[in-house]
């Protein structure tokens, strides 16, 4: 019982990441009708916003201290991160909180990247066949990940989580179970709550603002909205930017859980497509539900008991599920009829 509960928790943070990426994929597909194979790369770019932010604030300023000597007899070099140099103790706090703080950098950067991508490339593909959309965004994904590789190198760059959030929460004892029976790392809990927060914000935005209303109407029937004289293209561009920001933030906050490397995006992309397919192409709630469902399922499949029963199941469970769903229920859990059928 406790083991099951623990696995349930374990799936939540990964599920949150899947849901956030899949949400963006679905939004872009629903509004622009574009199948974006570069969406995973946006997740990866977000993660590298965190890396860049940390490198920026920990850039070391070298001063020499004539009072002290190094073991080699020369004046001791003191390396101080730039943030600490100018902000003192506050700088240390900022460095400690570099991951959540890099959200401030990621929002404008991802928005700009998203808008440039849409205006510069994607918009020329609205009316081209889906195969060509897949191909061009696939090429773009390669370009983005290789660019990151040239600047940040091929190896994963671990990002520490703020020290307050190290260790694990004793979730079990909160619920009256034996203390220590079910624990859940604090940062994963933070990530789960963060993803819930972003998801609610996006849904509220779509539900309660005029902008969101137009976008939803556009998803349902683009031509009619256009006939109403609403400049839908500009809104859709912003929508793409928003999807990029969501994917980017998902990437930023995920860095302490998985050290980002340049091909992170592709790994998540394939999984997120599976999520979108399972949830139903074009359905926002479907994408979210399927994201969490698959995260949890994956976590269950990696239980030792289950792995012993069916070896390798943890490696393929998600793909297997996608295959089954596509064959049995091609529209996914909550998909609309006829979307992308031809």
């Amino acid at each position, binding site marked *: 019982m406790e083991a099951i509960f623990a696995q349930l928790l374990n799936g939540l943070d990964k599920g949150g990441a899947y849901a956030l990426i899949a949400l963006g994929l679905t939004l872009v597909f629903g509004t622009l009708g574009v*199948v974006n194979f570069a969406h995973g790369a946006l997740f990866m770019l977000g993660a590298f916003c965190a890396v860049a932010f940390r490198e920026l604030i920990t850039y070391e300023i070298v001063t020499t201290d004539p009072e002290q000597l190094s073991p080699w007899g020369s004046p001791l070099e003191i390396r101080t991160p730039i943030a600490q140099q100018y902000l003192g103790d506050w700088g240390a706090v900022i460095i400690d909180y570099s991951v959540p703080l890099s959200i401030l950098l990621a929002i404008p950067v991802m928005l700009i990247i998203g808008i440039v991508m849409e205006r510069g*490339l994607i918009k*020329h593909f609205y009316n*081209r066949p*889906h*195969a*060509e959309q*897949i*191909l*061009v965004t*696939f*090429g*773009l*994904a*390669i*370009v983005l990940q*290789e*660019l990151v*590789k*040239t600047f940040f190198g*091929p190896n994963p760059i671990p990002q520490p989580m703020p020290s307050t959030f190290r260790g694990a929460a004793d979730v079990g004892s909160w619920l009256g179970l034996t203390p220590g029976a079910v624990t859940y790392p604090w940062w994963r809990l933070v990530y789960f709550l963060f993803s819930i927060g972003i998801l609610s914000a996006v849904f509220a935005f779509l539900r309660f603002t005029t902008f969101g209303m137009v976008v939803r109407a556009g998803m349902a029937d683009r031509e009619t909205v256009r006939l109403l004289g609403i400049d839908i293209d500009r809104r859709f561009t912003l929508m793409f930017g928003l999807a990029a920001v969501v994917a980017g933030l998902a990437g930023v906050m995920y860095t302490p859980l998985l050290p980002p490397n340049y091909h992170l995006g*592709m790994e998540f992309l*394939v999984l997120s*497509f*599976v999520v979108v*397919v399972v949830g139903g*192409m074009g359905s926002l709630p479907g994408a979210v539900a399927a994201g969490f469902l698959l995260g949890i399922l994956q976590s269950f499949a990696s239980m030792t008991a289950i792995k012993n029963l069916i*070896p*390798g199941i943890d*490696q*393929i469970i998600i*793909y*297997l599920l*996608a*295959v089954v769903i*596509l*064959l049995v229920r*091609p529209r996914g859990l909550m998909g609309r009829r006829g979307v*992308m*059928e*031809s």
Partner: protein
Amino acid sequence: MNVLRLPRQDVILFAVFAIVVLTMPIWLTPFGAAYPGLMQKFAIFAIFAVGFNILFGLTGYLSFGHAAFLGVGSYTAVWSFKLFTMDAIPALIFAVLMSGVFALGIGFVSLRRSGIYFAILTLAFAQMSYNLAYSVLTPITNGETALQLTNNDPRVIDMMFMERTAGLPSPSIFGQPLGGIGGFYLCAVLLLVAFFIAQKVFASPFGMMLRAIKSNQTRMSYTGFNTRPYALTAFVISGMYAGLAGGLLAVTDPLAGAERMEWTASGEVVLMTILGGVGTLVGPVIGAWLIKYLENIFSAFNEGMLHATFSWLPDGVEDIVVAVTSKFVGEGWHLTLGLVFVLIVVFLPGGIMEGVRRIRSAVANRRDNRRTRFSTSAAE
């Protein structure tokens, strides 16, 4: 013999193609590419791309999982070396058959959907194979260390005829070792066979049915065709081509790793086909050659060579140019590849073959214009 019959212009095309392929060691010399390792790759990846094009070019089904069949071919060939004999023929036959079986299974399931769903299904299957090769299937694939020959391999057939010798054996054909140029000619001959079969498909009623499926599947079924077995046949054929290519990779270098099945490898064959020209016979071959050639050139470049290349520029400018270009060569070759991919899809979705056709028709138009102008002025 119907089996060998082709329309006249196809016969000419095949003859020209055969000459081009077989004389590679001669005409590639000025390009500095006439060494066996690279020429083998030219032939092998051309086979892969020609096969992929039978599916994507004719039926329009975009598979993102064809590298899986390449990997299956490689593993099968290496196992044939290990278990039976170092002869290449059985290894290749097993490779083709085994990948055909895999393609039949995966195709049967994936072809129940079309469009983007088909692409994702094939991608999912390829990822599954890749993940499994690295985990549970390690006894068969040897995981990250890659499957290799060892001295203790049973090689039951070889052992009936000869003594175990010290040192690892190498692949052979009819007892002749297949090193270097011999390996190239084996690949070249198989490329010709593969190309010929592709020509047969393109020229046959079957090829027309596949094109009709791409053109209008609704009309196809209301015309009385059961489209799925047609597409499945194309899928299996192209899977077998990939298996042959994978088998040849193992024959020329007897080792098989799971990275061959990675989805980036699937993306590469898509790019080769697009770059050359989807749905044309020669296009995929040109695409494969160009990419493998550029890969060879670009990834070998380093900063020292760039400095040498741009030494005629003023010093400051030289440094900047070298700093920028160095991002695109060596390790950065994939960046160039990605850019080429994007540019081709944006500006020339029909690939190089479409470019050639456009230039040709532009020239023809100009000639026509001149002639018309001439005749009108003559009439006055």
